[in-house]
């Protein structure tokens, strides 16, 4: 076979070993798989009937969740966009600056939102603002990296043309690069927004407000029908945002 390489065997063995070790670590148990039935039973027995009278309240809560995700990621985009020019090898101010900015971005990116969330909930108090800050910080790291990679991949020709009309370095870069990367920037933004909605639910569970917090409260007080209602709202929310993101992306590109 053309694509067959001896080295392939080594890779396959290596991956097999990794799978085995990971399986041991997570205590993969095939017996538990057969008990998935129990999960289904639990859902059937406890989730119905849904508590539709909670709908207005849950919708209000979902607005909080949406706002946390939206403001957190939008603010992150506004901050990350200029920073990413400093973090791209083709446009950075200096070699040292490039490494400094790039590693700072890695640093904020390496801290999961929930860790930021736990810190802010303790230091700033419970509520959506702590969640918002957590989403914001992590996404500055993520968007900064993604956008700086777009900048590095942008066509150099237009940048050369802007240099030759005598524009300043920065203005030339902004004019020649942003139009090129804009659709991909928006695409990344919407993806991060979607992710942030799920994140802000999780952050709600540790006291960050919104739907996640309601869900956790119902769970803790064994109000499973109410919890199920919240889950349905969450699913609808995520799907609607996904569809909207698709529409916007199509319009821009």
């Amino acid at each position, binding site marked *: 076979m053309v694509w067959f390489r001896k080295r392939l065997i080594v890779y396959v063995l290596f991956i097999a070993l990794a799978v085995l070790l990971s399986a041991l670590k997570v205590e993969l148990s095939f017996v538990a798989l057969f008990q998935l039935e129990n999960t289904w039973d639990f859902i059937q027995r406890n989730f119905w009937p849904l508590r539709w009278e909670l709908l207005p309240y849950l919708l209000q809560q979902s607005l909080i969740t949406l706002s946390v995700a939206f403001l957190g990621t939008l603010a992150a985009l506004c901050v990350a966009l200029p920073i990413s020019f400093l973090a791209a090898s083709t446009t950075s101010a200096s070699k040292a600056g490039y490494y400094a900015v790039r590693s700072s971005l890695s640093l904020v990116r390496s801290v999961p939102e929930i860790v930021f969330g736990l810190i802010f909930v303790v230091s700033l108090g419970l509520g959506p603002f702590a969640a918002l800050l957590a989403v914001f910080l992590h996404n500055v790291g993520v968007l900064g990296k993604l956008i700086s990679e777009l900048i590095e991949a942008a066509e150099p020709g237009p940048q*050369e043309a802007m240099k030759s*009309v005598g524009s300043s370095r920065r203005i030339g870069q902004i004019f020649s690069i942003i139009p090129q990367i804009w659709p991909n920037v928006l695409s990344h933004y919407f993806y991060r927004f979607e992710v942030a909605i799920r994140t802000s639910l999780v952050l709600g569970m540790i006291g960050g407000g919104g739907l996640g917090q309601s869900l956790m409260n119902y769970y803790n007080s064994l109000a499973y029908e109410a919890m199920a209602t919240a889950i349905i709202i969450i699913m609808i929310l995520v799907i609607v945002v996904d569809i909207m993101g698709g529409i916007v992306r199509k319009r821009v590109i």
Partner: protein
Amino acid sequence: MISLENVTVTYEKETEPALSDLTLRIEEGEFICVLGRSGAGKSTFIRTINGLQALTKGAVYVSGKEVGQLSEKETRRLRTGMGMIFQHFYLIPRLTVKQNVLTGRLGQKKAYQNLLGLFSEQEIKQADYYLQELGLTSFADRRVEHLSGGQKQRVGIARAMMQEPYILLGDEPVASLDPSISDSIFRLVRTLHEQRHLTTIINVHDVDLAKKYATRILALKKGELIFDGQPSELSDEVYSLIYEEESLNNRAF
């Protein structure tokens, strides 16, 4: 008005210079075509004139100023006086024809005016004028990526003319266009050259175009100037010297 004195350019990690001890003067109002095989140093030559390419040795003077000695601000000022057109046009994708033409002004405005897209009525009028002049009026609001090659190059010329330059540089501006389109592009350039007394320096592959339009022809071979004279002086011998294959012996070392 442009003079090169012992100009040598050796690229990093290269042993052979791309331009080798070039000395010549170019007077105001000349229409110069530069001939040479691919790799002869034509692009390097053109780029030394507006300071896009730094020199290894020697000096380039434009209007009495040494290009390599200028501050960043002065270099930008110098470039605003030189329009440049490129083989691959280097237009900014996703911007319209008119927006691309307006970017020709970026070097002559304040950063905030550029960022806010503040173009004076005078500049808009000027853009409309050049669009008209180059037969682009009906495409003004179309995005540049949908244009044909010839149309793209006309946008490139309009962008250069927006600078109100006194020098026009062209780096193989017709190398990716059909012969009849190439001729019409050269006709447009000659009209502008005559109307505005533009000093014009253009790299071409096509000897016939050079003979038809140039007032003076230069030929480069392996970074050396091997011909400098009137189009009528370009004999068949010179022609074959410019384009002859390197001998096998030379190539081996």
